[in-house]
């Protein structure tokens, strides 16, 4: 089900530097200074349930000055992206990421943007199908930083066992027949390629969907990657 994918994504997202919880905590640290200032002010009035209507006049004049001072002293806000900010719906983000990456490639063909997505907060969900499995799954390629990470996630997702270390050797095993499977992907030109040949960033940018298939069916997938690199620019 779609839900479990996001679980995996969320867990991995928190591990990335500058993302998620860390950014949120950094934001809070920036405010601690101002909180300390405020704690010295009498807040007894607030303990009475909903009875506070006016503040003492002294507070009124003190507050704006302190607020301004606090603002001036406050360290600049962290530049790391906070989770869920700006408030753009996940649905919209997914749709727009696909479109904007595609448009960038069309508008700026000379400029290679291998890290357009890596490390950013946008998502790159692609479908993953495994021959014989009744449902497709989805992974967000931006959640991983290497083929190894992706391989681990796919392994968990399809509950298969690997006999090798990475996808390049395609040692996932089909749970029904026990035959070797390989992981392939459809790239932007519509060709089916073997996963693992190109640099990770280039793969993330060009991968449209993943398919885990039996090794026997994968004959004929040639790693024409060197030619493709030249043609793409």
């Amino acid at each position, binding site marked *: *089900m*779609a*839900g479990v994918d*996001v*679980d995996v994504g*969320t*867990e991995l997202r*928190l591990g990335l530097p500058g993302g*998620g*919880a860390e950014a*949120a*905590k950094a*934001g*809070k640290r920036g*405010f601690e200074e*101002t*909180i300390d200032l*405020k704690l010295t002010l009498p*807040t007894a009035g*607030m*303990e*009475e*349930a*909903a009875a*506070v*209507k006016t503040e003492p006049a002294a507070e009124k004049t003190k*507050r*704006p000055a302190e*607020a301004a001072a*606090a*603002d001036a002293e406050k360290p600049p*806000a962290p*530049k790391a*992206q*906070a*989770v*869920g*900010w*700006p*408030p*753009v*719906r*996940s*649905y*919209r*983000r997914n*749709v*727009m990421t696909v*479109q*904007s990456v595609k*448009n960038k490639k*069309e508008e700026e063909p000379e400029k290679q943007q291998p890290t357009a997505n890596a490390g*950013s*907060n*946008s998502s790159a969900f692609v*479908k993953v199908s495994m021959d014989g499995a*009744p*449902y*497709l799954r989805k992974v967000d390629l931006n959640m991983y930083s290497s083929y190894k990470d992706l391989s681990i996630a796919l392994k968990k997702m399809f509950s298969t066992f690997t006999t090798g270390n990475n996808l390049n050797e395609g040692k996932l095993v089909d749970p029904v027949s026990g035959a070797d499977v390989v992981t392939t992907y459809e790239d932007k030109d519509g060709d089916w390629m073997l996963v693992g040949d190109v640099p990770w960033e280039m793969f993330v940018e060009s991968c449209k969907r993943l398919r885990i298939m039996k090794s026997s069916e994968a004959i004929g997938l040639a790693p024409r990657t060197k030619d493709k690199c030249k043609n793409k620019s």
Partner: protein
Amino acid sequence: MGRGGSRAAPAAAAPPWHALPDEVWEHAFSFLPAASDRGAAAGACRSWLRAERRSRRRLSVANCYAASPQDAVERFPAVRAAEVKGKPHFADFGLVPHAWGAAAAPWVAAAADGWPLLEELSFKRMVVTDECLEMIAASFRNFQVLRLVSCEGFSTAGLAAIAAGCRNLRELDLQENEIEDCSIHWLSLFPESFTSLVTLNFSCLEGDVNINVLERLVTRCRNLKTLKLNNSIPLDKLASLLRKAPQIVELGTGKFSADYHPDLFAKLEAAFAGCKSLRRLSGAWDSVPDYLPAFYCVCEGLTSLNLSYATIRGPELIKFISRCKNLQLLWVMDLIEDHGLAAVASSCNKLQELRVFPSDPFDPAGQVSLTERGLVDVSASCPMLESVLYFCRRMTNEALITIAKNRPNFTCFRLCIIEPHTPDYITHQPLDAGFSAIVESCKGLTRFSVSGLLTDRVFKSIGAHADRLEMLSIAFAGNSDLGLHYILSGCKSLKKLEIRDCPFGDKPLLANAAKLETMRSLWMSSCSLTLGACRQLARKMPRLSVEVMNDSERACPLDSLTDESPVDKLYVYRTIAGPRSDTPSCVQIV
């Protein structure tokens, strides 16, 4: 009521009004359109309570955990249309743990049991499974309307069950859901004899649909008024679909892009020319502007235009929108830029709702020239503008004050300045004055989202002036507990409050605990709350459910944590159903 009867027939005195049979009251209440009016009537006396609840046809449950499905079905046995909403709004932005809850299954089960005549069901931000959809198809013989908004958990297999089982289906409206593609040709399961469809919206579906099946379906459903396609329908097929359904009122074109061919252009133009009733248009239009003129013939009739997934920019876009002189609703990307909005301001004087979405929200450089100017222009020239959602990168107090003066009729004002803590870019001051001006001028404001650099001062204004405000969203704002206190001790009509990354702590929460029971819900994340305060709140207010969440998916064993432990996410809501039993391990009810 009971006084004049004796004149004509002295032997039969009319019964005193309070002894009239329930059916009379039920009939009277059927003239009360608003649920709040019905609720008020129900509160008058026992007999009105009985009559009202037994005749209530439409039920809206704004928080699925505020009452149990069994309670709802028992209390309102005659419901024909139900709407249930689940996850808090911030779930849209990934802030709510994924397995948080909001399962639709208990509601479907209770409805199947207690509302066999149910005709309409609508779920928003809930987990709807294929089993739910199968149960819906099997349980309600006169089921007509299914609306799923921002839901997840189901696949095309569930849609197949609906198509096959709901003989009288009028509306299938799928908005921004996550739908698993099982490659089942669900559309083919509408029987050949099925002709009742009025609304078909599958724009969020990612897979392919069988075009021929779709064409046949569209052809035989002569009452089809709303058709929203997904990305798999190519442009030439759109033309032939339109020729089969020229009576269409609302169209979503899916992916509107192809290389330019004069033949295809002519086909499209002719097809659109035939759609004399077309009023609402949307679609994921992809760059190629060459086909836009094919739409020109419908522009004048359009009241609603949603281009918020369209990556068109520049003069073509402006030429198109300028022809839409009767637009009431416009959703666009910031690619329209300030000069585009200036064109909207001069052409679309009937505009009521404007939403401008960011095309590249994570690009710090912000290549697009959309600033406060655009919003100022539109609010100056569109006298009926009352609802705005605007993403931009810079703002000034002066602009906001001008906007507030020009448009005191705002009911919904949501401004998102993309970078947190952004001050007035000219004076470098906080934007307190600007947002305060909005809230002071717009007496009818019911929804408000603030952003940019803000101190407690703005919250003082909001608390004091926003008497009709029902929903308030705050992020990266304020500088002390007073900010939250101003809101909770003011804002008479507040129903939903959602806060993230603000330095608000325990004191204002506890000081205003009673307020929370007058509200539907409160969300606070990444603020300065402690577990002790949440415990106190829960003890003090037994009719509130106080949920505490970790910022990870791991288990959250509260018993071992001290009162001083920080709380990352808090969700508080009033409920008559007691604590829910379906929390995942990362959510704890205090």
